[in-house]
């Protein structure tokens, strides 16, 4: 484009931009540069930063003067942790609530995807910008930590580790708010993070007012047996949750011709396998690995069963390169709920396998709970298929059904206890979470009418039967729609590969 042709020759040469726009390196992601430029000028960060400083200074002075000298160190720690946690764990992550939604609403996501910037870079840029500002807050409390050190009786390593864990927790919660901010549903985008934020704020207050901070610092000394493993498992789970939330956001903002589902599913599968292998290598109890595996499966299954379908040639083509193997892999990894149902079946089977290869356990109640939990994940998927044509936002609907199912279960149990009519609970045994309480029903029945311990294997069979039944229904729906997938594959095969 020649500038000369555009406007009549200006009498004065326009000022050059040389020397400007150098505030951030070219190596940084454009999105991060944009977010930092905006974020550091934004009122929220400046207010949080200055308020944290002012409050820490003010309250520290009062706390130190008021507290008995022997406990002054702990008071100082409490004050630092309280304000730092509130700012970093609650206020900062909640800033991510509207981040991607504002871009979608303002049509600017379209403008960004037309550049060379990938959807991942857009979401990551948003996330890193908020996390780096939380990092600035962490750096800002360093002088107070030095002050705290001089009060004595400081568990240096443990307190620093706790601060780092709070920071990591902030990063995870920020990823969740940023990832969910791309969702069209206000429930997922706004209410859920707000609820989590309120819950976290309540937790922070509870920890500090009930003197549990000392216990947490004690845990962070890693002196207790198994505490290091527990920490590692917690960090891995948090990292997985953060990645999954961001991946969900990325899928929502990506152009339809981009496939982000396959890699997300592969990583979920790999995480479950890895966890199973770790459990086997470390000879961990099923009581530890089982719930963790269900926790890993839950979001992956929920997303897979609710994913909208847009199969297009650019998505299908990479699979078709591998012939029959690629087509078979596509039935598990193509975006959309059809392959999502098959993927869920595979994931559930792998998770069960991962539990079984671990240390053996005779606890039948654990097995019942695990199978019931997997059934609980599949049940809303089946309800969703029945009402699929009327559902606009499948994922919020799935969560709604899940919550309603849990609420119904609680209602049934309250009714059973109040009427002392336990056998009627069996009528609701097709609702997976109810199965968790069936051993209690059996025990009570045995207590009334029989001698000897009750046989829980019947409950286990019921749990396995219903979970398998729900899986079969989902697979039947999926198989019924396979011809549609085949149609896209055929069209892709029949069209030229490269641009002319």
């Amino acid at each position, binding site marked *: *484009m*020649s*500038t000369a*042709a*555009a*406007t009549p020759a200006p009498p004065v040469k*326009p*000022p050059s*931009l*040389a020397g*400007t*726009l150098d505030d951030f390196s*070219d190596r940084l992601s*454009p*999105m991060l*540069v*944009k977010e930092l*430029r*905006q*974020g550091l*000028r*934004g009122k929220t960060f400046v207010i949080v930063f200055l308020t944290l400083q002012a409050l820490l200074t003010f309250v520290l002075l009062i706390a130190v003067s008021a507290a008995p000298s022997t406990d002054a160190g702990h008071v100082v720690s409490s004050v630092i942790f309280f304000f730092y946690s509130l700012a970093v764990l609650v206020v900062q992550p909640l800033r991510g609530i509207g981040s991607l939604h*504002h*871009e979608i*609403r*303002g*049509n*600017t996501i*379209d*403008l*960004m*995807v*037309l*550049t*060379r*910037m990938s959807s991942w870079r857009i979401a990551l840029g948003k996330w890193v910008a908020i996390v780096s500002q939380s990092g600035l807050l962490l750096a800002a409390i360093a002088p107070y930590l030095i002050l705290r050190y001089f009060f004595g009786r400081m568990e240096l390593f443990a307190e620093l580790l706790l601060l780092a864990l709070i920071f990591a927790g902030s990063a995870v919660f920020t990823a969740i708010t940023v990832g969910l901010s791309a969702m069209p549903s206000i429930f997922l985008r706004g209410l859920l993070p707000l609820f989590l934020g309120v819950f976290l704020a309540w937790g922070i207050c509870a920890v500090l007012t009930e003197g549990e901070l000392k216990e947490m610092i004690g845990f962070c000394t890693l002196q207790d047996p198994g505490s290091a493993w527990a920490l590692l498992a917690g960090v891995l789970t948090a990292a997985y949750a953060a990645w999954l939330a961001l991946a969900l956001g990325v899928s929502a903002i990506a*152009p*339809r*011709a981009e496939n982000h589902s396959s890699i997300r599913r592969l990583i979920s599968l790999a995480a479950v396998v890895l966890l199973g292998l770790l459990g086997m290598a470390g000879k961990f109890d099923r009581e530890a690995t089982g719930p963790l595996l269900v926790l890993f499966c839950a979001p992956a299954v929920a997303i897979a069963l609710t994913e*909208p*379908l*847009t*199969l*297009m*040639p*650019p998505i299908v083509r990479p699979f078709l390169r591998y012939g029959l193997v690629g087509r078979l892999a596509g039935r598990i990894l193509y975006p*959309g709920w*059809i392959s999502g149902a098959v993927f869920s079946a595979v994931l559930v089977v792998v998770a069960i396998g991962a539990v079984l290869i671990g240390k053996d356990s005779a606890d039948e109640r654990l097995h019942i709970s695990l199978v019931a939990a997997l059934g609980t994940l599949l049940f809303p998927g089946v309800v969703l298929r029945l009402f*699929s*044509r009327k559902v606009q936002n499948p994922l919020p609907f799935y969560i709604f059904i899940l919550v309603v199912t849990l609420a119904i279960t609680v209602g049934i149990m309250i009714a059973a206890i109040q009427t002392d009519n336990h056998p009627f609970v069996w009528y609701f045994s097709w609702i997976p979470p109810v199965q968790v309480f069936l051993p209690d029903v059996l025990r009570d029945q045995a207590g009334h009418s029989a001698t000897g311990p009750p046989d829980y294997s019947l409950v286990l069979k019921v749990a396995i039967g219903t979970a398998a039944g729900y899986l079969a229904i989902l697979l039947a729906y999926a198989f019924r*729609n396979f011809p*549609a997938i085949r*149609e*896209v594959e055929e*069209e892709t095969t029949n*069209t*030229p590969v*490269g*641009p*002319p």
Partner: protein
Amino acid sequence: MSAAPAIKVHNLYRYFGQLKAVNGISFEIPHGSVCGFVGANGAGKTTTMRILASLDYPTMGVAEICGINVVHHPEEVRRLIGWMPDHFGNYEHMTVVEYLDFYARAFGYSGKERKTRVQEVMEFTDLIPLADRFSNKLSKGMTQRLCLGRALLHDPQVLIMDEPAAGLDPKARVELKHLIRVLAQEGKTIFISSHILSELGEMCDSLLFVNGGRIVHHGDAETLRQGTDSHGGMLYDVQVLGDPAAVSDWCVINPHVELVESRKAGGRIRIESTDPARAAEILARMVKDGLKITEFHKEQRNLEDAFIDMLGRIDRGEGALPTPVKKPEPAFTPPEFPN
């Protein structure tokens, strides 16, 4: 430059459930031309443009930019096009120069080249004086210039502009028109939608009229203007002294004369004959009936008249719509998936 047309659309369909937003349109736009895309709200303009920009996908049919299929090769297409949406949000706490710098980085420019590109588009769009203004504090006209600058950063061959003149004041419109003409002179292909037909007529080499998701006319403005008036008459501007409603009242009671448009001092009438003698007769009758005529002259049919006339013909089922070609080998026909 590719031998294929800059934009090619063949039998393109886009359905949103029962709504047929685009209903089998086909057209080609050669390189270096400016094509106006005209139609009422909901006619399918934005949907077609979004498909061409690889932001949406067709239910069926082919859309190509410089011979590259937008469904099969969206990445390649994005390097060739510049996209100006009908509306977009600006960023808070970000200056004009930072806004362009962000997109320059996003397009992959770095170092000196990045600054040069930003400088060039700022000079072209005359944004240098606004460099340090916050981008969300700009007027509509300045915002459109900023948007044009962003769309030009990667020097695209084809510019797709959706209602760029909407909401602009006359001065900003003239500026935008000037910029578009300069870009056309530089050989860029411009596909532009607008409601303001007169402006498109001056700016565009060809006009594409769309109605109900189908193309109803493709040709230059002059062909359309000179096309046969379906009413078979002539238009006259009539101005009177006194109450201008006298013209419309007179038209109501006189057959073969129809009021087309009320005006400040009278109205625009259509006389159902092309014979000048008939016009003289009508004028004489008006004077005889007591209308104090100060002006009576023949008017050319403008683009709005031609467009409305054409839509009227279609509504009456008189005008034959171009029949869509029999289903070609579609590049992509996604099946109906239950979601």
